C-alpha cells in the first residue's frame, strides 16, 4: 500500500522574540510551522540559516506570539449583516491580531439549535479569515425559560453556553442549567446583571447620570447576580464564567469563590479598564455599553483583578452597531463597542503603564481563554495550530474608527493614542493580515 504523497507546506519565522504565555517563554528565536501546525521552535532553530525552499517570514525582532483568542464577540451574522458579516468581522479580527473568535448566540435567529451551529461552521469555512467557534444558547431563544439541547449542541461544537446579552435571571432555571451542564462538564457563561435593577437604566448610577438626567443602573446589579450564581455553582459543581465583569464588588466575589476552589472564571473588556462613566460625557452613545462604564474605583478594581489573576481573560465584547443604532438620544441608542481592532492595543496599555508584564497581558488574550474553553490554540507548542501573531509592542498610533475593517465604526476611542499592535496575523497556512502590505 502506498501512501498518497504528502505536500509539505513549511514556513519559517525568523528573527523573532518568541513569547508564549502558557510556558512563560520569552526568548529570541525562530519557529517552524508545517502544514498549519507548529513543528519546531527555539532559540537555536535555524541558527545555521533556513534551508533552501522554505518560505521565510522575518519578524524583524518583533514578538511572535500565539494568535489572540477573543472569547466574546457579537457577529452580525445571522440577522444583522448590515452591522457586520463574518467576512468583515473576521477581517477586522485579523487586523487586530485575533486568530480565533468565539461568537455569542444572541443572533437572529439565535444559536439554540444544532442546525445553527452547522450553519455557522459552514459560513465560517466559506467566509471567515480567522477561526470562529460558536457558543450556544442556554435557553431556547435566549428567553430564559426552557433549556436548550446543551448535550447535542456541545457534540455539534458549541464551546459553551450563554444567553448572550441577557442574564439568566430565574434562579430555578439557572440552577437547572448549571446542574444539567455539569452532567456533561459544559461551561455556562453568564451576563451578570440583575435585569430588574437594570430595567430603564442606561448608564452607571451616580453623579454623572444624575447630572445628565439619565436613569441609572446601580453597580449592585452585578455583584447581586454573581453572588447568587456562586451559590448555585456551589450546589451544582458546574463550570461557570462571568462575562465582561465590571465592578469591584463582583470581582471580589469571584476572587473569594476562586479562593474556595469553585470552578469559576471571568473576563473583562478593554473599555472597563480604559474608561469610566465620565466617558459618556455629553451623551456620547458610543460610550453606552452593557454593562455600563462604571466608576473610577471600579475601573481600578478591574485592573487589580487582572493583575492578581481574578480576571482570567480580556475579550473585546465586540458589538457592532450602525449609525442608525447610535445616532439617537442616549436612552434609545443601542449598547456596544466595535472592539476587534482595539483589543490588543488597549490591552497593551496595561503593559506600557507598568501595571502588568507583557507576558501577563498576552496570557489574558491567549493561553487563559484557551484553557478555560479547552482549546488547543493559544500556545506556542509543537503540534499546536500555527495560529500566530507578530506584535510590535511599541509602535505609537491613534485609533481611527474610520479605518476599521468591521462594517461598524462605533468606538469611543476615536483619536485615542495607543502603542503597539499586530504586524502580521497567521491562521494555520494562511497569512490573514500584514500591516506593511
Amino acid at each position, binding site marked *: 500500500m502506498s501512501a498518497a504523497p504528502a505536500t509539505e507546506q513549511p514556513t519559517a519565522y525568523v528573527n523573532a522574540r518568541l513569547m508564549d504565555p502558557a510556558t512563560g517563554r520569552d526568548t529570541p528565536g525562530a519557529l517552524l510551522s508545517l502544514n498549519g501546525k507548529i513543528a519546531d521552535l527555539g532559540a537555536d532553530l535555524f541558527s545555521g540559516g533556513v534551508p533552501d525552499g522554505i518560505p521565510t517570514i522575518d519578524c524583524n525582532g518583533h514578538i511572535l506570539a500565539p494568535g489572540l483568542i477573543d472569547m466574546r464577540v457579537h457577529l452580525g451574522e445571522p440577522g444583522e449583516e448590515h452591522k457586520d458579516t463574518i467576512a468583515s468581522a473576521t477581517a477586522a479580527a485579523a487586523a487586530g491580531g485575533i486568530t480565533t473568535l468565539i461568537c455569542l448566540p444572541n443572533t437572529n435567529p439565535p444559536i439554540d439549535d444544532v442546525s445553527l451551529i452547522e450553519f455557522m461552521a459552514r459560513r465560517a469555512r466559506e467566509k471567515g479569515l480567522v477561526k470562529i467557534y460558536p457558543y450556544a444558547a442556554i*435557553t*431556547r431563544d435566549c428567553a430564559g*425559560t*426552557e*433549556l*436548550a*439541547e*446543551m*448535550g*447535542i449542541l456541545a457534540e455539534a461544537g458549541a464551546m459553551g453556553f450563554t444567553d448572550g446579552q441577557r442574564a439568566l435571571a430565574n434562579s430555578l432555571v439557572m440552577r*437547572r442549567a448549571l*446542574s*444539567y451542564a*455539569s*452532567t*456533561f462538564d459544559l461551561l455556562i457563561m453568564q451576563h451578570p446583571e440583575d435585569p430588574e435593577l437594570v430595567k430603564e437604566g442606561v448608564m452607571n448610577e451616580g453623579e454623572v447620570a444624575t447630572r445628565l438626567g439619565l436613569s441609572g443602573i446601580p453597580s449592585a446589579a452585578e455583584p447581586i447576580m454573581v453572588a447568587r450564581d456562586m451559590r448555585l455553582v456551589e*450546589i*451544582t459543581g458546574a463550570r461557570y464564567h462571568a462575562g465582561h465583569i465590571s465592578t469591584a464588588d463582583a470581582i471580589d466575589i469571584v476572587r473569594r469563590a476562586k479562593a474556595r476552589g469553585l470552578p469559576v472564571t471571568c473576563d473583562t473588556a478593554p473599555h472597563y479598564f480604559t474608561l469610566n462613566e465620565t466617558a459618556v460625557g455629553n451623551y456620547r452613545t458610543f460610550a453606552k455599553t452593557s454593562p455600563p462604564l462604571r466608576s473610577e474605583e471600579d475601573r481600578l478594581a478591574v485592573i487589580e483583578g487582572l493583575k492578581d489573576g481574578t480576571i482570567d481573560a480580556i475579550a473585546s465584547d465586540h458589538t457592532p452597531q450602525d449609525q442608525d443604532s447610535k445616532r439617537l438620544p442616549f436612552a434609545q441608542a443601542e449598547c456596544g463597542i466595535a472592539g476587534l481592532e482595539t483589543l490588543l492595543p488597549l490591552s497593551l496599555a496595561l503593559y506600557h503603564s507598568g501595571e502588568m508584564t507583557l507576558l501577563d497581558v498576552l496570557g489574558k488574550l491567549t493561553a487563559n481563554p484557551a484553557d478555560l474553553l479547552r482549546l488547543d490554540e493559544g500556545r506556542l507548542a509543537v503540534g499546536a495550530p500555527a495560529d500566530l501573531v507578530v506584535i510590535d509592542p511599541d509602535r505609537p498610533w491613534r485609533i481611527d474608527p474610520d479605518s476599521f475593517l468591521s462594517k461598524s465604526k462605533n468606538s469611543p476611542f476615536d483619536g485615542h493614542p495607543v502603542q503597539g499592535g499586530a504586524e502580521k496575523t497567521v491562521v494555520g497556512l494562511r497569512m490573514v493580515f500584514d500591516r506593511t502590505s
Partner: protein
Amino acid sequence: MTTGLPELNFPHRHILGIEGMTREEINFLLDLSDSYVAQNRRVDKKSALLRGRTLINVFFENSTRTRTSFELAGKRLGADVINMSVSTSAIKKGETMIDTAMTLNAMGPDVLVVRHPHSGAVQLLAEKVTCSVINAGDGSHEHPTQALLDALTIRRRRGALDGLLVAICGDILHSRVARSNIQLLNIMGARVRLIAPRTLLPAEAGRLGAEIHHDIRKGLEGCDIIMMLRLQTERMHGSFVPSIREYFHFYGLDHEKLSCAKPDALVMHPGPMNRGVEIDSELADDIDRSVISEQVEMGVAVRMACLDTLTRDLPANRSLDEGEPTR
C-alpha cells in the same frame, strides 16, 4: 390453600414501604409470591382465602395498571373489591384525605390499598384507620409492591439478587419506584447504580447506597439488570431535560447502549413506557432482553402475597375487643 410455605414471618400490620423490612421478610413475601405465580398460571385461578374480606382501592392519583393489579389480586383470593377514585369525587367536594379515610374505615374494610400524589400521605392515613394499609405509591417516596415485583422478576430469572449489579436509569428525582428499589436491592445484597443527568438526580443520591453515573455507557458496564424509569411528559420540554430528542440521545436505552452491559443483561420498566423517550421501541419488545411483560405478571402474584400476609394477622371478627389473630 398455601401449603409447604415457611412460617409466617411478617410482624407488620401495614406495607407502607421497603424501609424497615428485613431480608427475611422480603424473602418470605417473595417465596409466597412464587406460589401465587403458580396459582395464576392455572386455568382456575381463584381461591377462597380472603372470602368475606373487603379490599378497597383508594386512589388519590390516577392509575390503571396498579389499581387493576390489586383488584385482580383481591378477586383471585376471593375478596370483595371496591375501587374508589378519590381524585374525582370527595376531594373535589372539599373533604380532607383523613376524613375520606375515616369514612372508608367506618365501612369496615380489611385492607385499604392507597395511592396518593404526596409523599408521606399514605402513612398519615394508615395512622388513622383500624384496618391494614398497603402503599400503592406515595408521591416520590415509596412504591413497595413495585420493588417486590421487580425483585421477584429478577429472582426467578437469576436465582438470587445477592451480588447482582443493577442499574436504575432515568428520572430518579421524582421516582418512588427508584427509592423503593434502591432500598430493597441494598437489603438483598445487590449493588445499585443510578444513571441520570444531574437535573434528574436528587441531592446526595449517592448516600442512598448507590453509585452515581451520568454517562449511561459507563454506568451500564458490567450490569446484570437495567431498570428504566418513566420520564413524565411535562419534564421533558426544557425544564429538567431540554427535549425528547436530547434525552433519548443520551439516556434512551437502545440495543447499542445496552451492549455496554453484560451480554445477558435484562431490561425492566415499571410502565407505562414512553417508547422513543427512555426506551427504544424495538428493545422494549425484544423477548430475549425485555422482561417488562413478566413484571406485570409478577405484580399480581406479589400483591396476592401481600394481601394474604396482612389478612392472616387480622382478627376474625372485627369487634374492637382483642381477639386471637386467626386465619
